[in-house]
């Protein structure tokens, strides 16, 4: 059904997106919670900063990643010499780019859900002996699952489709950083390769339809459709 090259591309895209989303979820949720529940100086600035990857053209984001995490970048240098982690030209760098592009979408969806959790329920939990954290874990967190799932799906879809920041930051190396969109782009540059491009585009679509289906099943399983909403 798929050629070996296609398999490599699919596997790489999945790895990049799943790692990106898995690592970003907790951070995104923490940011969403902060924005939904706390007020602090600089809140609007933080909010704006989270939205940046959405506004700034992806190529510029990639270029900033290059400046920061490249060999000569402050963080890149530190990561390389201190931790032995290289991001440039690596799939890990692609995951970082995907994560950053997905972050604003994830935060917004989660924030909406957290804002909708009734504080009176948290009061009830506290009066029953729950610490702040226990109440968060047993009330806020499960009640915001719709937002978490929505955020994860949006973020995953965005990661699977990420192109500009990735190619600028980690280049288009077959087997290492050539994810589905990069492979599609490569195809588009060659006259008459519409067939190959179409196959790859359909694969992208199938992956995210899969993610959607998965999230709907999770929703049902959590018994939410009927009860939370």
């Amino acid at each position, binding site marked *: 059904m798929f050629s070996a090259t296609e398999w490599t591309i699919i596997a790489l895209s999945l790895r990049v997106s799943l790692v990106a989303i898995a690592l970003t979820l907790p951070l995104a949720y923490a940011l969403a919670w902060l924005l939904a529940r706390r007020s602090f100086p600089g809140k609007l600035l933080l909010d704006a900063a989270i939205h940046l990857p959405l506004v700034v053209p992806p190529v510029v984001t990639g270029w900033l990643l*290059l400046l920061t995490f490249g060999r000569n970048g402050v963080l890149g240098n530190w990561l390389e010499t201190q931790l032995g982690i290289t991001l440039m*030209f690596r799939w890990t760098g692609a995951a970082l780019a995907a994560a950053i592009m997905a972050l604003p979408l994830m935060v917004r969806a989660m924030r909406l859900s957290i804002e909708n959790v009734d504080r009176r329920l948290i009061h009830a939990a506290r009066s029953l002996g729950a610490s702040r954290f226990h109440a968060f874990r047993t009330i806020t967190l499960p009640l915001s699952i719709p937002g978490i799932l929505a955020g994860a799906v949006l973020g995953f879809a965005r990661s699977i489709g990420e192109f500009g920041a990735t190619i600028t930051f980690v280049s288009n190396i077959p087997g290492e950083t050539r994810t589905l969109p990069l492979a599609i782009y490569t195809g588009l540059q060659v006259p008459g390769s519409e067939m190959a491009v179409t196959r790859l585009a359909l694969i992208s679509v199938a992956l995210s339809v899969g993610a959607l289906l998965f999230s709907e099943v999770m929703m049902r399983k959590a018994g939410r459709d009927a009860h939370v909403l």
Partner: protein
Amino acid sequence: SRAPSPDEGPLVLAASSMQEAMLDAAEQWHDSGHPKPVVAFAASSSLARQLLHGAPADLFISANQDWMDSVEPAGLLRAGSRANLVGNEIVLIAPKGQNQAINLSDSSSFTAALGDRGRLAMADPQAVPAGRYGKASLENLGLWPDLSDRIAPADNVRAALGLVESGETPLGIVYATDAAAASDRVTIIARFPETSHPPIRYPLAVLAGSAHSDAMDFRDFLLSPQGQAIFVKHGFSAGRAE
């Protein structure tokens, strides 16, 4: 199509790598008393696809013959207007101040210059014209087998240039014109022999649907000695019919 208006020049679709030179040429044409042409830059592939779908434009300048060839059979070009505008060559560059001696016939001098981690930046050798010329040269010189997994394939040739400029890669393959545009940050350390790759030509043509009275005149200006001089100033070689 775009209504030809007396105060607006023809719409030119041009490959991104021609940016500085084309703007310069448009400026000079304007200085000689013509309405200023509107130049839109994008990848040749993108421009060709737009033309195939009926984009209303007056001139098309592609970075390679393939994409010009792809629009010609569709009857999109005005008969007899296609010509080679300029030529170019590809060069090996390094960040300014890092003057490794590279022997183009010896892959070990490349690997030495790259170190154990460094990569060779070039436009995607599979797709982007600049990369395809580069790959052809490397193959021709017998270097490709040793270098093929040391490549950093970029979106376009200018992105490859950027990787060298910022020092992220120690070496890169770009057009001579790109190297010229960034001469304060990169050095040319070798020129690939013209025989090592297919000739690099930028074809130009007036589009069949163009109704702009200046379109043909501007084409002729670009091909005239005065026009050609502008391109040569930017590092291109004069166009020659094949």
